[in-house]
């Protein structure tokens, strides 16, 4: 595991040192190239039995990554799965970012080439295992044919085939040419999980060594010879247009080369970002704000509440809801969640070189093929004339499931001779995001004999799926918006779930880490706690009582309660809150312990999660994803809200769109349960778990049942009535 690994495409192709990186540090910019032109995935002379595996005669094994690396550790997990079934030599692996190719690298869950929704391992588990096993079988067939023995008498390990009876061993590299001529098996035999040697071990990540020394190349780091730098201003009002631009002062700024004025944005091109930024600041831009200049948060919430009073499309109905609600004591509540920006640490960017007959793009995206096709439209070129060079992503969180930043950069680049790197300022990044939509979830439930007998739940919010993946939007139901609302783990005899589509005016909305389950798990788990209190039961005990037929949920809940010292005494105004969720194919229980001070400020003391995610491909990455996911969710619960006034986003940077910091971070323990079930998704589970667990901890500490995020401290100050 200590051998040299490189994710540089150049390194992968030359099988050697990442010379491209070194050049960038010691030569002046004009000669520096941080990222080579995307080479073709050349398979000549290699054993390349499928889209994912290339073995050259020296044994170097290149694995093509169908999912993008944005911090979730997927390059390592994909490599582990492929290498496991291939029995590859881990020290000889080299990784290659996949090119845009929906057919070869499409995500089997989405069909399109996308990384998101905590689907990577779930979607690629079987195809990657089969790809590895099939390649292994062909290598074995080649060796067996050479030796004139039965393939079944050969074994494989670490990139070699062995025939034990005759004591012969041959490397995969030496077999590359012969294996290429073999017929792939129709149904390759997969390993019995008990024989896994890589999967399930805590492997060191392949992408991290270059991230401690500045060598890792993100989209924003791409350096193309002779490129210029640009930054942009879009109309601050959504949908507004450019009116007049006075560029006299900007043109006098040293280093400013060009002012690009398009119908909805203005960009300044310069010798470096500083010149571009100074130039942009010096522009006098008059915007035609258009009809959206009157939009504000209050009106958006009024509209959402009105929409939420209507009947929705039925997403699920079991039992008899009218009877269920009538047969016990009835309680109602509504929960509201705000717009959120993604704020990836790497601000939006794309480097583009538009020529009359081609366009080349350097960026980091979660949607390779869609970026290519949208860029082609913007460039006015056939799709095959657009090359997209993908990079490591400095965070994705769903923001880079959208192509808008690349489209804008292409439109700017069309006005520029030579390549141009377009970088969003943080302010522009936050004010022109594609926001997590506002949601309002209403619940009516009835309690009888300490149990829930009726559960009527309605989600009201935008249908992101209708825009992003239209074929999946069926019968008026957004499958993302209802995710985790229709599969609540608790045994409830009468359940009715509805969805009301309500699109906020003009504000673009999209996926945000945790997606649909964020809103539903919050509403469900908060209300379950309220019902537990009405029933006079402890929140964990109350949940347990409804999980008799849910052994995986029950087991994570019990272990989380034990590890978090559930039930043991706490000081005044300190509470523990629990959250149990079915999202992303993973069973996870979380307990947050928090203190609420006299002013209502919150001190996060401790978070404990127990995760049953089926077979844990790389257990340490699973722990890391839950730790980070919790922080992401807790950040949103404590601070996250984008508000709109006069058609504009009011927040602009980390001073007013705050993030949790290290000094506020609780102790976090994550326990991964051993399981032989198929793997679940993990990247978003912690994000979904954090807010309801914290809210329930606050409920326990203060008696205040918060029903809206972010947490309003004013409601929590000591002496306020619960």
């Amino acid at each position: 595991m200590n051998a040299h690994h490189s994710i540089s495409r150049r390194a992968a192709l030359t099988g050697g040192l990442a010379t491209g990186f070194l050049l960038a540090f010691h030569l002046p910019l004009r000669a520096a190239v941080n990222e080579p032109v995307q080479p073709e995935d050349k398979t000549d002379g290699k054993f390349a039995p499928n889209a994912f595996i290339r073995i050259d005669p020296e044994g170097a094994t290149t694995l093509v990554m169908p999912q993008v690396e944005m911090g979730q550790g997927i390059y390592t997990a994909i490599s582990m799965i492929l290498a496991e079934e291939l029995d590859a030599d881990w020290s000889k692996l080299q990784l290659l970012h996949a090119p845009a190719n929906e057919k070869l690298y499409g995500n089997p869950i989405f069909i399109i080439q996308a990384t998101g929704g905590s689907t990577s391992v779930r979607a690629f588990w079987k195809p990657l295992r089969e790809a590895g096993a099939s390649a292994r079988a062909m290598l074995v067939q080649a060796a067996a044919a050479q030796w004139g023995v039965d393939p079944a008498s050969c074994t494989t390990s670490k990139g070699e085939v062995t025939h034990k009876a005759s004591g012969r061993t041959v490397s995969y590299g030496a077999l590359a040419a012969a294996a290429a001529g073999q017929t792939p098996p129709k149904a390759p035999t997969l390993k019995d999980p008990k024989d896994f040697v890589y999967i399930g071990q805590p492997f060191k990540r392949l992408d991290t060594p270059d991230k401690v020394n500045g060598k890792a190349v993100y989209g924003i780091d791409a350096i193309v010879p002779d490129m210029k730098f640009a930054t942009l201003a879009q109309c601050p009002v959504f949908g507004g247009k450019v009116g007049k631009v006075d560029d006299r002062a900007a043109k006098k700024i040293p280093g400013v080369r060009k002012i690009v004025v398009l119908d909805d944005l203005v960009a300044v091109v310069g010798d470096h970002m500083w010149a571009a930024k100074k130039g942009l600041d010096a522009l006098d831009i008059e915007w035609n704000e258009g009809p959206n200049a009157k939009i504000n948060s209050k009106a958006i919430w009024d509209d959402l509440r009105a929409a939420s009073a209507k009947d929705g499309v039925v997403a699920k109905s079991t039992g008899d809801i009218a009877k269920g609600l009538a047969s016990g004591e009835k309680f109602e509540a509504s929960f509201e969640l705000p717009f959120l920006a993604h704020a990836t640490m790497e601000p939006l960017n794309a480097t583009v070189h538009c020529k009359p007959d081609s366009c080349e793009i350097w960026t980091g995206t979660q949607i390779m093929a869609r970026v290519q096709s949208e860029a082609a439209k913007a460039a006015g070129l056939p799709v095959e004339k657009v090359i997209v060079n993908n990079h490591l992503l400095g965070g994705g969180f769903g923001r880079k499931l959208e192509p808008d930043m690349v489209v804008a950069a292409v439109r700017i680049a069309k006005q520029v001779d030579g390549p141009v790197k377009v970088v969003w300022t943080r302010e522009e990044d936050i004010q022109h995001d594609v926001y997590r939509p506002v949601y309002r979830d209403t619940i009516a439930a009835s309690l009888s004999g300490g149990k829930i007998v009726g559960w009527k739940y309605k989600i009201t919010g935008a249908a992101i799926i209708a825009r992003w993946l239209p074929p999946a939007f069926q019968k008026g139901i957004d499958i993302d918006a209802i995710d985790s609302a229709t599969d609540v783990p608790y045994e409830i005899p009468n359940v009715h779930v509805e969805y009301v589509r309500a699109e906020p005016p003009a504000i673009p909305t999209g996926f945000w880490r945790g997606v649909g389950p964020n809103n539903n798990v919050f509403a469900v788990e908060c209300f379950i706690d309220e019902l537990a209190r009405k029933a006079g039961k402890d929140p964990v005990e109350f949940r347990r009582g409804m999980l008799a037929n849910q052994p995986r949920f029950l087991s994570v809940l019990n272990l989380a309660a034990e590890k978090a010292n559930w039930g043991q005494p706490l000081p005044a105004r300190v509470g523990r809150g629990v959250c149990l969720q079915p999202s992303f194919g993973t069973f996870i229980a979380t307990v947050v312990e928090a203190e609420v001070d006299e002013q209502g400020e919150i001190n996060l003391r401790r978070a404990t999660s127990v995760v049953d995610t089926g077979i844990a491909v790389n257990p340490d990455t699973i722990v890391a994803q839950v730790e980070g996911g919790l922080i992401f969710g807790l950040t949103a619960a404590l601070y996250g809200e984008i508000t709109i006034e006069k058609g504009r986003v009011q927040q602009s940077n980390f001073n007013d769109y705050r993030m949790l910091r290290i000094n506020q971070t609780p102790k976090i323990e994550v326990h991964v349960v051993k399981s032989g079930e198929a793997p679940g998704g993990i990247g978003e589970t912690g994000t979904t778990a954090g807010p309801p667990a914290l809210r329930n901890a606050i409920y326990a500490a203060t008696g205040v049942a918060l029903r809206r995020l972010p947490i309003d401290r004013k409601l929590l100050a000591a002496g306020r009535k619960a």
Partner: protein
Amino acid sequence: MHMATTLTINGETKSFDAPPEMPLLWVLRDILGMTGTKFGCGIAQCGACTVHVDGKAVRSCVLPVSAVENRAITTIEAVGNTPSGAKVQKAWLEAEVIQCGYCQSGQIMSAAALLASTPKPDDSDIDAAMAGNICRCGTYVRIREAIKQAANGRQS
């Protein structure tokens, strides 16, 4: 045009033309092609752009180049040549701190400066030195752990 500016970066002398008020961040990234130092916010709120000036952690996005002539500048590309930087890099990999990694250049620079001045930091020292560095992936728990590992000299 501009006066030529000369800086000492990672022990090497670099001369270039830039306006005196231009932040060091953009000189590093856009003129010298040293892209290990990252742009995150531009207003010294996130720490992604942290470098060392005479061994102290500073935010290069708000630091005019004119203020750092004749000072020793160290960036992520060379921090591994310092004892504290090498310890931090090693601990970061051992604790598998990193996720997306975009903020980690800045985190490592802040942590290396902390260890250089405070070889055995306690939790409050870590809070004070690291609270200016945002990590959106939420690696804070492991950052704290890795700083303690580095301080406990597993390196030697």
